[in-house]
């Protein structure tokens, strides 16, 4: 059979039955197994309407099936706009955007961090915020009659150190540092 299949037939032969439990243990992923594939999430998802790569219901099904590599390495998990539309409506309380966060967290540990998110994480480590507050910025603030803000916040980097996030950011695919 295999030899006669056309290349574009998506045949899956290897599944990881533990993946769904792994996701359910991750903060935010707890309710994933409640999903009964009703499609409410995708029906109301503005991202799914515009970008065929993204379909929250399908992603959840892929997790339940155990397509671990495909899900974690795919950039589609980074496409959730976390608008919580589906979160409010999901009849099974799957809390989809939180599930997506759980998946992204696992992906990061496997070295699949999306570059945009890596950049943000690094900026925050450096400045304690997304945007650096330099002298110029503070000058402008004082001109406007607003209080000055200290440059940087070293405790943020300390937190990264405690949680091991610095190590994670330097991980390669496969999860090795």
């Amino acid at each position, binding site marked *: 059979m295999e030899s006669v299949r056309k290349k574009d037939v998506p045949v899956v032969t290897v599944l990881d039955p533990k993946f769904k439990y792994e996701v359910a243990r991750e903060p935010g992923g707890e309710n994933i197994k*409640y999903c*009964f*594939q*009703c*499609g*409410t*999430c*995708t*029906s*109301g*998802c503005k991202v*799914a*309407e515009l970008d065929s790569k993204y*379909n929250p*219901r399908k992603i959840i099904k892929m997790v339940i099936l155990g397509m671990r590599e495909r899900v974690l390495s795919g950039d589609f998990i980074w496409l959730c706009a976390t608008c919580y*539309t*589906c*979160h*409010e*409506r*999901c*009849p*099974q*309380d799957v809390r989809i955007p939180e599930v997506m966060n759980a998946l992204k967290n696992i992906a990061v540990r496997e070295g699949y961090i999306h570059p945009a998110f890596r950049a943000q994480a690094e900026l925050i480590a450096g400045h304690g915020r997304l945007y650096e507050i330099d002298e110029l910025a503070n000058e402008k603030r004082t001109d406007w009659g607003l209080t000055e803000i200290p440059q940087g916040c070293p405790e943020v980097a300390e937190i990264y150190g405690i949680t091991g996030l610095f190590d994670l950011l330097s991980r390669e695919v496969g999860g090795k540092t």
Partner: protein
Amino acid sequence: MPGMLQDAGREPRIGVYICHCGLNIAGVVDVEAVRESARFLQGVAVVRDNRYTCSEVGQKGIADDIKEFKLNRVVIASCSPRLHEKTFRTLMEKSGLNPHLLEMANIREHCSWVHYDDPVAATQKAKDLVRSSVARARLLQPLLRTKGQVLPEVMVIGGGVAGISAALYLGGMGIKTYLVEKEPSIGGHMAMLDKTFPTLDCSLCILSPKMVEVAECENIKILSYSQVEKVEGQVGNFRVQVRRKPRYVNEDKCVGCGDCVAKCPVKVNDEFNRNMGTRKAIYIPFPQAIPPAYVIDDENCRYLTQGKCKICQAVCQRGAIEFDQTDQTETIEVGAIIVATGFEPYDPRGLPEYGYGRFPNVITSLDFERLICADGPTYGKLKRPGDSTVPKRVAFIQCVGSRDQATGCAGYRLDGGTGSRGESTDPKPYCSRVCCMVTAKQAFMVKEKHPDAEVYVYYIDMRTAGKGFEEFYQRGRHEGIVFLRGRPGEVEEKEDGCLRIISEDLDSGCILDLTFDMVVLAQGLIPPGGLGELAQKMNLSRSEDGFLMEGHPKLRPAETAIDGIYLAGCVQFPKDIPDSVAQAGAAAAAAAVTCSKESIEIDPLGPVIDEALCIGCRLCEVLCPYGAIKVEFTDKGPKAKSIEVACKGCGVCGASCSTKAITMKHYTDSQLAAQVKAILEVV
């Protein structure tokens, strides 16, 4: 009575039986260890373990032991006494022992089932329970049962198809039956339906003859426009207080000519037509109503609200209008009660994303029944409410308010913070069981009226289990109804009143962006309003879903945990008409069995009052939830007296009495103390 009272005097000789219940108990609890732990307890004459204690072999073993070891007390460690206490008490009686010398330890529900993940602790708990049961058994006293009378009459509460059917079965058996209905007419929801699946018979055409039969049956008395206020007593002898609202129209005089209606100046929304049409302040809910008498709606009648009008009285030639009617309370005594108060449709305003209540062309399935019914507001012409045009594209959305864990949408403060609308708008987690077929039927009816109409059904799963149901669903597909797997997130209204639905079609993998003239929401079935209070009045429990709890989910589906109270129809759980009628039959049979008895034995569980100690303080009288203990004046002053038939043996009086004048017969202080002491012993 067998079960000699002289048992009391003898030294206790206790037989202890530890049940395996197959693997139900033995799979978790180490039964042999429990058996050994009981062997040397004081008073124990024999200990055994049994695979199935309730089986014939198990029971025979006990009977033999009673003879051989001259047992005078028995402890059985098995399942809940609710399941088998009766079985084993009967066994004791047959073996010549007083049935109240039995004590059960529940090591299945309380040990192996709840602690299935911790066998060691479960075993320890089982040992503790057995030890404490033996301690109590040593102090058990034989008790004499009294007999209570049984009134051969039944009350059915709720006059939907379930209540009607139950009443007819009972009436047919010659049992006097009271049918209490809160609305002016019996009929329930079935009276509102147009046709019924899967055979498409006209609903009223099949219901109305039954309603007439009820009215004509000499054994049935209809108490319409009535509510149950209070229920006292127990199986065989319930006293039910029923409050009858005034109709202001004499049922016997009114011939239904309708002269009054023509002249009544007040028009209001017609709730029978789901507020899509209007009626007068004096009205009959629908032409086939039973009783076939008019009623004046006191919230809207001009005379009753403003003191001026009485036009109806002037035009009525039969003198049937009686404005001096008032609330009447009647007390009715019956031997058994059947509760058949049905359901309430889910109010989809709790899911505002679907637009019900905001968009006129979004309706519910019950609205649809009225809209397509020849007696409905449009005389059977399918017209959408927004602009009375004929809808050419109709969508149905399934599971509205059902199969929803409700965490997202329950309890919002709608209306700018004026408070949540309560239970009827909170979605429910269960499947409402009939709405798939209701939609299949309604979609079919659209096609029947307008074969060129486009009909789409958005569903999660189609559930069509039932005789002829799958075939009906197939017929619908054949007619061209399109079933779409995928639940929409939202309905949007367009300027022309049409409705846009964007959804994922799971099967084709496409996002569908479709526009419809009308959308029908398949609303779920939820417990009827006021069920909580009614249940409380009768001490009935509700299951987690809010419906009434049956006696046993498999074996006693038409009974309740309270002897003499039975269930029929949707009040137990959503179901269709045939199932409601079948359950009504079962409930009627069960009630008839009760009523056929000459007398009923009453468990001697109530209080014994030591008159020397009783100071007549009335504390027990005030606290007893069943009015079963009253202080009376005797020649020795005021003394408490127990009213045995009303007493449920709850023990409140015993616990409350400050002079310890009250002893509960079967739960004496010394028995309970021994039990507690034993359980706390460290072994």
